[in-house]
């Protein structure tokens, strides 16, 4: 199985399409960092104006943690679109290229092939998030230095810099499960058709529709809202509160992992039954 995953990873990382996500992050994050480098003080002043009326605010507020948190907050919603570029292509791309025939005539079960592709895609997803973490948090800490983190979630929360790394680690860990859910959706779409563009567009469309549904504040949607994975994906934010609501986080993890298992299960069923005609 490890050999199969290694082979799939080689296939993923030898394609230019794989690097679109890295390129996007590699361009966007420095742009945000440069903008904050020059205008960060006024940005922080604007954020803390109310606070400054009552308290004496001191220390390095425009620090790497704040930038890392801001970037994670603003970019995590867009990462799914980068992930489906690879996820949607993993199976359908083989069909389009005709290489299904090469692969499925090997002495390896279809389930193992599928599982190895799934793991390889998940590793790609993890590497993209790791790159985001290095660029947004690591690079920001190098440029802007350390300091306490101010988080605005309706109210103002201040976290000591000694109390932050584990929160970021868990937040990224949680975000990874959310992103693997997105990857699983695109992987399922990829198992259905024999053209890579379809699954990519379909997965993006589903995510957009679910985002819209999650934003609609109608009673009609209340019953399904707790089960929408796009809402649960945002619960990484819960690690940035004084009293972490672990029960909600666990519930969200259950729902996200449930989605992953269902998406993968359907993909496995389809792939196993599929006649390879390409």
């Amino acid at each position, binding site marked *: 199985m490890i*050999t*199969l995953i290694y*082979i799939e990873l*080689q*296939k993923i990382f*030898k*394609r*230019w399409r794989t690097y679109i996500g890295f390129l996007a992050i590699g361009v966007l994050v420095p742009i945000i960092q440069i903008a904050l480098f020059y205008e960060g003080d006024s940005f922080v002043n604007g954020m803390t104006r109310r606070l400054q009326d009552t308290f004496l605010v001191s220390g390095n507020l425009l620090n790497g943690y704040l930038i890392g948190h801001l970037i994670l907050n603003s970019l995590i919603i867009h990462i799914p679109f980068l992930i489906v570029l690879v996820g949607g292509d993993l199976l359908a791309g083989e069909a389009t*290229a*005709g*290489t*299904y*025939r*090469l*692969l*499925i*005539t*090997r*002495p*390896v*079960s279809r389930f193992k092939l599928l599982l190895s592709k799934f793991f390889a895609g998940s590793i790609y997803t993890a590497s993209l998030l790791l790159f985001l973490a290095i660029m947004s948090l690591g690079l920001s800490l190098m440029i802007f230095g350390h300091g306490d983190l101010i988080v605005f979630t309706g109210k103002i929360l201040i976290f000591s810099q000694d109390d932050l790394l584990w929160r970021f680690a868990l937040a990224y860990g949680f975000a990874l499960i959310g992103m693997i859910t997105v990857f699983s959706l695109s992987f399922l779409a990829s198992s259905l058709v024999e053209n890579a563009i379809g699954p990519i567009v379909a997965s993006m469309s589903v995510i957009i529709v679910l985002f819209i549904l999650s934003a609609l504040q109608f009673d009609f949607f209340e019953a399904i809202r707790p089960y929408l994975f796009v809402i649960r994906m945002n619960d990484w934010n819960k690690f940035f509160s004084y009293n972490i609501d672990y029960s909600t986080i666990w519930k969200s993890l259950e729902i996200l992992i449930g989605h992953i298992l269902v998406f993968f299960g359907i993909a496995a069923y389809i792939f196993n*039954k599929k*006649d*390879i*005609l390409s």
Partner: protein
Amino acid sequence: MEELIIEVKNLTKKFKNFTAVNNLDLNVHRGDVFCFLGPNGAGKSTTIRMLLSLIKPTKGSIKIFGKDLSKHRNEILRNVGAIVEKPDFYLYLTAYKNLELLGKINRCDVSKSKIFEILELVGLESRWNSKVKTYSHGMKQRLGIAQALLHNPELIILDEPTTGLDPQGMKEVRDLITTLSREKNKTIFLSSHLLSEVEIVASRMIIINQGIKKVEGDVKELLNSEKLNVKFEVSDIKVAKYIIETSTWANALIQLQNNVAIFSLSENEVAPVNKFLVEKGVEVKAIIPSRSLEEYFLKITAGEI
């Protein structure tokens, strides 16, 4: 009793209302170069895909090496090398990398020397480090043969292996097939449209049409049971017509047109007809036997036999 390498019984594949393969039976023995013939849409590729578990049969059984394909798929495929239709590869990888990855999946020797040995066999050693997207169709076809042979399989399934090759390349593939069969005792299952090629390399064959088996057997026996269509180009067709129609050869005459008399003859009747015409003063300019397998194939698929 020769060992059966492939044993197919009542194999049927239906796509909704269309039956691509209908109750097909076939047997391939060890060491055979078994040719699978049929016009486009006859069900050849569907059958080959079922033999390689790319398509699941609607009905029927496939045994390879005496084992049920549906139950022992991996064990069987470990000893099968194949090209299915056009040779497609990971275009963004080099030929070497493609072979290395595919070999690793097969758990076979993927040492540099082994891969180069195979690349040399198909004449691609000088382009080992080129990405496959830069390859011509013929080169991809050669690489297809290389990947089919890399793990030294007992059974080699080749679907149109000479498509896209130049005449020299076609001859090399034919020679390779003959070598693999005679010297390495490999069993070859070969689908081809090139009947001349089949006639040269095949020991046994099957012809299918519209998913149904028309004939199966030893190539020489099947062809020898058939008469050849032989064209005699003569100088004076009017004289020839009179002489032939008043002779015992009239029954063998098929057509008289444009100074050409076409007879249906067995191989040993060609010389006597020639002698007869010459003795009667008809100048014979040329004798052209039509390709026996081609005639046979066309008759079979047209339902004339």
